[in-house]
């Protein structure tokens, strides 16, 4: 039993049939690495020297048993990567736990207005209600306004990014000439590269003024935030759906054209259906980007947390899940911090879930195109 485990571990670290010398070298290297990892957690002060010892041992091993050491290093990199991913996930949940136990369902308190609890899709029968919904001094927190603000902003952004993005992808993949494609694809990438804080600054300095003048608004508004976030999510939708459309074999388009169908008919009946799962994955990913967008929203919407009245008032403003974290973290008390972690966990779960769904959907396209439906 034990020997089989050792054999498997040895196999994983070294591959098959290591020599005696390789075993010793790699063993030493592994030992020093484990020691330094332990040090990080137990005695951080000594971590650096022990790590240096690992580097020295490995460097000597590199000279004598390069293949084995290389394999070990890549394995270590993999383990560290997996550890990082796990650490982030676990630590987030761990940090949010106190707020869960302290507040529980109260975190979803529905605000009471003059005329009773705010209508919230019949959720007001299930969830608690309360007059004060976000008051750190009193220790009362509800995430409902934050969630609803996120929903509004994401909806507006999705309404902009999804149709425009798919049309843009169609243009790049099917309509544009080769030379134009060479110019526009990098253009879209650059659009994706503009830092969110730059969008935020434009929104804060220019667009907020515009909405005050043209839409008689008193300040920030979901409309502008959604618009900006929509433009920011656009490149994601464009490039992912463009990939999906380009993966539809050209032979199919040729076949359609040879039957006398126009390019638009081929697009509608061949390319888009074949790439539909990829396109939906693109839209899901784009929405994920929109939900997770922080700086532009924080800059445009400001720090106020308040319920939106009436529910669909796109000229209102309130922090979203992300911008609340950005605004409040620096000055937050212990209990507020915990609540912010709950918001963080929510974001993490939703967006990671969307990513997993989109990956699943995207894998289907390949299977479908290979005729294994």
């Amino acid at each position, binding site marked *: 039993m034990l020997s089989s485990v050792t054999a498997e571990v040895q196999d994983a670290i070294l591959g098959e049939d290591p020599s005696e010398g390789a075993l010793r070298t790699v063993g030493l290297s592994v030992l020093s690495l484990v020691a330094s990892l332990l040090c990080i957690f137990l005695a951080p002060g000594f971590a650096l020297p022990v790590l240096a010892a690992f580097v020295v041992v490995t460097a000597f091993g590199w000279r004598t048993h390069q293949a084995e050491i290389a394999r070990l290093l890549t394995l270590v990199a993999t383990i560290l990567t997996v550890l990082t991913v796990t650490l982030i996930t676990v630590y987030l949940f761990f940090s949010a736990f106190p707020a869960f136990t302290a507040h529980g369902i109260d975190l979803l308190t529905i605000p009471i207005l003059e005329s009773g609890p705010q209508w919230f899709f019949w959720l007001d029968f299930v969830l608690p209600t309360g007059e004060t919904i976000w008051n750190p001094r009193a220790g009362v927190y509800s995430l409902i306004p934050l969630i609803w603000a996120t929903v509004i902003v994401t909806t507006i952004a999705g309404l902009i990014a999804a149709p425009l993005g798919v049309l843009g992808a169609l243009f790049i993949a099917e309509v544009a000439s080769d030379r134009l494609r060479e110019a526009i694809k990098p253009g879209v990438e650059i659009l994706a590269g503009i830092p969110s804080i*730059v969008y935020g600054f434009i929104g804060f300095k220019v667009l907020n003024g515009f909405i005050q003048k043209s839409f008689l608004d008193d300040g920030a508004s979901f409309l502008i935030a959604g618009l900006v976030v929509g433009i920011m999510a656009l490149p994601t939708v464009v490039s992912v759906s463009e990939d999906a459309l380009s993966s539809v074999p050209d032979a199919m388009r040729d076949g359609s054209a040879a039957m006398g169908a126009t390019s638009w008919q081929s697009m509608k009946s061949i390319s888009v259906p074949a790439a539909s799962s990829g396109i939906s994955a693109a839209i899901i990913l784009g929405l994920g980007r929109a939900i997770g967008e922080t700086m532009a929203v924080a800059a445009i919407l400001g720090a106020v947390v308040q319920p939106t009245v009436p529910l669909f008032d796109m000229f209102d403003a309130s922090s979203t899940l992300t911008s609340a974290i950005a605004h409040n973290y620096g000055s937050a008390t212990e209990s507020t911090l915990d609540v912010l972690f709950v918001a963080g966990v929510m974001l993490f779960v939703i967006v990671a879930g969307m990513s997993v769904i989109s990956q699943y959907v995207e894998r289907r396209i390949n299977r479908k195109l290979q005729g294994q439906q």
Partner: protein
Amino acid sequence: MSEGYAHENELVSAESNLYDRAMDVGIALSITTFVVGMITFADGVSLAATGMELVTFFGILLGVVAGGVGIVAVFSYTNVVPITSQRVRGVALGLLVSLVGLAVAAAALPVSLATMLGLVMIVEAGLLVAAGAGSRFGFVETDPSMSAGLLAGIVFGLLGAAIGAVIVASFPGVPGVIAGVPLWALGGLLFGVGFVVLTVSPREDIGSTVPPALIIGILGATIATAVIGVGWQWTPENLSGGFTGGSVIPVFVLFGSLLSSWSAAKCRADFGARGRQYGAFFVINLNAFLMVAIMAAIVVFVAVKGIGWAFHDFSIGALSLLVVLAPLLVLTVQRARAPAGTDEWHSAARQFFRVLPLAAVGSFAAMLLGIIVTGTPFEIPYQYAILVDRSTVMLDTAFRVTPSLAVGNLLVIVSGTLLFTYFLRRYGSLRDVGIEYERLSPVRQAVPAVIGLLVLLSLVFVGIGPAPGGIPIGPTVGLGLATLGAIVVAALVLAPLGALLTGEGSLAERAHENAQLLNVGLFSGVALLFAVIVLEWTAVSNPQLGPLAPVPTVALLAALVSICLAAFAARARRSTDDTLRHRVLGEEVTLALTAAAGFVTLIGLHVAATSETAFAVGPVEVAIHGSLSWPTVLQGAIPLGQAPGGIYPAIVGTIWIVIGASLFAVPLGLGAAVFLTEYAEQGRFTEVVETATNALWSTPSIVFGLFGAAFLIPRLGNSLSLLAAQLTLAFMLLPLVVITSREAIKSVPDEYRDASAALGVDRWTTIRSVVIPAAMPGVVTGVILGVGRIAGETAPLILVLGSEINATNAIDVLGGFAFTTSPPFITNEALLNSSAALPTQVWGIITAGVSGSTSKGWATAFMLLVVVLSFYAVGIIARTYFRRKINYE
């Protein structure tokens, strides 16, 4: 068999010129209104504009369009860029016609822009109805389907319902509710159903023209009759905001023109399958154009806003600018040197465009020379607003090019290195060419040995210091050796020149024969002098022979000699017809130019190595502090000063964050990718890791910030710190590196691995020498793009790094390292301190409210954009380069 073909189509459709041209004008008119709508939305022109103002506006538009169309028309006519499509030609002509028409109408009619846009929409509606009716009653030959289709029906139904509801609701004096149902809902329903029927039931030519024409007409009439005028306002009770004419009219115009361009395009292509295609493509093209326009607008807008502050008090010497320009000049020359075209003159026109960049750069260089010769500085004075004590003050400043002849050594080094590598890459080889002199081979062997010795000596000085025990060994030894080395270099470089100038035969023959002398002399010269400069640096010596510093003087001399050699070789090359000799001399020219660039670089390096002294020849000097003054990039903030200072600390902070994150994430991610793709068995485990990394890559950045703030900061000294920022961004970068590296490694064909394995090569060697080199392009470009994204990331930084806006001092990471006797034995205070960074500085200015300087914010955003977009540009260029290389294009 052919019963199914109800209508037998003609293979070649007849031309109906009038109809086609009319529809082209209709499309062009829609495009024009769309663009005007966008301009009014962005407040480019007032909706209330009338008379002269309006005529001027349309006149400007007409000028722009006429210019653009004219240039393209000339190129098309002369067959340089032939445009054959009748539709493109028609729309271009239509644009001119409609703009002329609008300008004339603006002069003739006493109406405002808003009214006029409304009238134009009514005209468009009329045109559409005419086209639809013309087709239906057989005046023009078209190819319509039986129905416009369900999709169009639904869209027009919804639009009709919306319009109906609004019309009924805003009608004065109607009761609000009948039998419990709000009247507007009834009206909407009625209109909606009507529109659906009108769209779906008639033939396509009516179904896809009349409903949109009705909608456009109604919208146009609302604007034209000033039901919704410029001053119109409506604030619904519940909403926090409201609507004004200023926002609603442009929306109506944009929407209406979009609809009419779609419908007109359908008419133009005779309905049916082809009509639907043209209509749809029109919308798709318009959308793509909009996307590009938005992108360009954002970049240009930030640049325009930020450039004033970013270049305040910028001044640079003309010579420095020339040094910067040198690599560009070489590139443009290279571009212009492409093979000449055929005799046909449009090929000459294409040739003209090849030369154009050279002409631009060349004339700029000539202007700089003019500045140097005349001694008059070039100045662009301008003003911008800064914040002093929370109040705005206008500051006078200027962008200057001075006639100064001082050049910073950094500029020389960067520019020289670029040129050196460029020429070196173009240089092939001169092996076994010319005469191998007997006395050359000892030199060939001696030079590397001498260089090795010098490097060894330098290492010794690094180890024991230049003056161990107070005895100045270093300076003394350095003095002797450096002087000696410089003399040897001079001899090495002058030998080929001597051989070329004296001796038998023609210049070409001499140049050919002495190829080895040139090869050994120049390359050894560069290498030896480089070693000498390294020795100077480590030994802290700067030999002076009276007023003369031998090392840079020899470097300058060698550079001049190299240029002479290049000139001679080039001249000789012109005079020879022999193909082989032609090639050899070409190589010699490249070699000499490489050496010249190398020697110039060495002058810069010498100044850097001996730090305090500048190297001057007459008025020209290479110095540590050159003639470049750029406060924004080279200074910190000045506390309480009138002068605005700069954002140097933020730039340095961003650079260190990017470096730290990449150092951590790239090796780790690459290693993981290699293991996952090459060693691990493909199955459940790799799939889970892949899904998890993908999920982590799309996780909101603020979540990483939360993690960094709660996990890293307590373990790294409990304060906001650079190290925490680096690690947090490294965590963000890690999944991307894994994903892109895996993609790249996967795309290496298995045949490569099999071929290598079939030769008996073990796995690691295969990976190292076959897989990784083949995957490198993909990895490099992916990582560059990822790093670009990281550089602009803000959300996690404000949690782990803070958002300082007025940093006066840059963080000193290299100088921060210190050894201690207690664990962890090596510390770096700088890494554990907070720092400014470009993105957090922008955020800081936003949160600072009135005390945040807007102009500084724009400038910071601009610099951030420059940094991030240059990463992207490098990444995209690298990708295109590698792709071309792989495809042997």
